[in-house]
């Protein structure tokens, strides 16, 4: 059980700009809105948690930064005096317009024992209008979760779309010296180790609804595909056929998986159900066929094959079984992932170093996402298709998880654990 709904939202007064769509997230290029998030003010009498004032502001400010729609201003530039409050009447908006803030999030909190109450108001600095206001309740120990919920709520009010703030990312971590699967909040906090196989464990992939995760782990005999029920916390074997049982992908219906098996003597892709039974063989070729990923309608599958000599990405139409090659540039293109918004991201190399690219499934509009900073591999999409996660060794030589907007803007490192963090899978928020 890893989601516990506790917060209760109460809308404060009717916002002045209820109907206004502040941010159009479908526009191709967006200007980031500057936002100021001063420390939350304590509203009670005796403050038992003075650290929360800056901590809560920090969590939500980081959310605003990571989502790519905002540019949080540096706290050091704030000039507002200590006497200012969190309501419209007690704020001098000139203090904020002069430092370039377009939006101002004012919030206060109160603690009674472990109970935490937060009151938040978002103002348009230019007009002084309140565009959002809410009071939420929860527990002190769940303050990160509460802030993510608040951020989600604010983003929804501004864009009519929920943000990524309540999602989670699983990845392969090497801090034990082995490879195990870990799970963290999308911002890298709240880390948990999911597997303890004490061996090489690879390729976590969340089900479309985020409630199950499949992965591959080594046994003495070779690779085995497992499924972890995240709600029940149970793990079971799905496929342990002789040879490879690797790189499975969920069909969007959540009922079938594609994976690479070598039961024919050659690495080919098969469709199996969630009990592991083979439904259909999908590829039959002398070469290597791996890394399947399905289109949003589940009728097409992109995969990697070396049938033309080097690893390239192909698309199979499951209806007529026609295969077409998608990538032609570069000598090594791999790790395709198909987004809910019908775009394919992949890792490609022409000189031994890998970069993340995105391309339209019809082969048009190839875009380079990373720009020569170290190696960039293992792309994955956020469940809504608006963000990318990938692993990069650009900072210290070890691989860490980065997230960015779908167009590659706003690349941010979200994990900084010991050794490598690889192969992310982004989970839908479990409802």
């Amino acid at each position, binding site marked *: 059980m890893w989601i516990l709904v506790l917060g209760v939202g109460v809308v404060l007064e009717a916002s002045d700009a209820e109907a206004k769509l502040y941010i159009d997230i479908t526009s191709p290029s967006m200007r980031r809105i500057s936002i100021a998030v001063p420390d939350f003010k304590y509203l009670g009498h005796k403050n038992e948690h003075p650290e929360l004032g800056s901590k809560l502001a920090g969590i939500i400010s980081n959310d605003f930064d990571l989502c790519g729609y905002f540019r949080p201003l540096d706290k050091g530039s704030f000039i507002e005096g200590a006497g200012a409050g969190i309501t419209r009447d007690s704020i001098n908006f000139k203090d904020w317009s002069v430092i370039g803030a377009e939006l101002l999030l004012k919030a206060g909190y109160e603690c009674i024992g472990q109970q935490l109450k937060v009151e938040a108001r978002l103002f348009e600095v230019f007009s002084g209008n309140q565009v959002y206001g809410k009071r939420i309740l929860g527990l002190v120990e769940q303050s990160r979760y509460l802030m993510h919920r608040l951020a989600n709520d604010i983003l929804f009010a501004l864009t009519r779309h929920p943000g990524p703030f309540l999602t989670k990312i699983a990845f392969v971590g090497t801090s034990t010296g082995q490879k195990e699967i870990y799970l963290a909040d999308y911002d890298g906090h709240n880390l948990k180790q999911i597997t303890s196989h004490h061996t090489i464990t690879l390729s976590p992939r969340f089900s479309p609804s985020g409630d199950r995760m499949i992965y591959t782990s080594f046994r003495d005999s070779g690779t085995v595909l497992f499924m972890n029920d995240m709600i029940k916390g149970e793990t079971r074997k799905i496929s342990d056929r002789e040879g490879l049982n690797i*790189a499975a992908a969920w069909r969007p219906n959540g009922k079938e998986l594609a994976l690479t098996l070598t039961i024919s003597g050659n690495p080919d892709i098969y469709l199996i159900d969630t009990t592991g039974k083979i439904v259909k063989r999908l590829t039959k070729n002398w070469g290597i066929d791996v890394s399947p990923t399905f289109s949003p309608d589940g009728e097409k599958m992109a995969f990697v094959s070396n049938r033309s000599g*080097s690893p390239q990405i192909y698309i199979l139409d499951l209806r007529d079984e026609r295969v077409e090659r998608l990538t032609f540039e570069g000598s090594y293109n*791999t*790790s395709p992932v198909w987004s809910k918004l019908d775009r394919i991201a992949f890792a490609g190399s022409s000189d031994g170093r890998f970069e993340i690219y995105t391309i339209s499934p019809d082969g048009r509009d190839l875009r380079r996402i990373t720009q020569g900073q170290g190696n960039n591999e293992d792309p994955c999409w956020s469940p809504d298709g608006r963000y990318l996660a990938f692993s990069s060794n650009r900072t210290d030589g070890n691989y860490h998880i980065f997230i960015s907007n779908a167009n590659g803007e706003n690349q941010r490192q979200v994990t900084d654990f010991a050794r490598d963090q690889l192969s992310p899978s982004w989970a839908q928020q479990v409802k």
Partner: protein
Amino acid sequence: MKRNLVVATLVVFAFSSIFLLSSCAKKQVITEEKEMEAPAPEVAKEEKAAVPAAKEEKMEEAKIERLKELEEAKKQEAAIDEEKAWMERRAAKFEAEAMYFDFDKSFIRLEYRPVLQEKAAFLKDYPDMRVRIEGNCDERGTNEYNLALGERRGSSAKNFLISLGIAADRIETISYGEERPRGLGRNEASWSQNRRDDFVLVR
């Protein structure tokens, strides 16, 4: 008693003849046997007095026989040990000699054909041995593709050994993809070490 004595004497003869056999022609052996048969009645005459001496002699002879048996066993053991040591040396060489591949390729390079032929010869000489071929790749590319590539590298070696007459059920393959590098650098020197098949004997 008398019979015993005769038996003892015959044993003596038997042993002497073993010693003589190597140096004498068949005819000579026969004559010497005849010559040596002569003192036998003498021994029979001294029957009563000779009993303790004969007993001692008999024990002595049994001891010698036992020693000889031991020596023979030791020799056999030494021969087995030598054979075993030779096998172990060959086994060690079998396991030490990896086979290396070109980047993103799984075909067997010409220079490794003799290496595989030697491995096949070893497996033919020791039919109880099985082999596990472990396919490995350098770190470039994805784990998933490299797991498949490692599997193909293992299969290449397996198929070659089968073509040389090794039964398929004596060969298993496992791919470690890029997960078990020997060279840890991010350069060709390390990578070329990591694109390999390891051969592990399963006894």
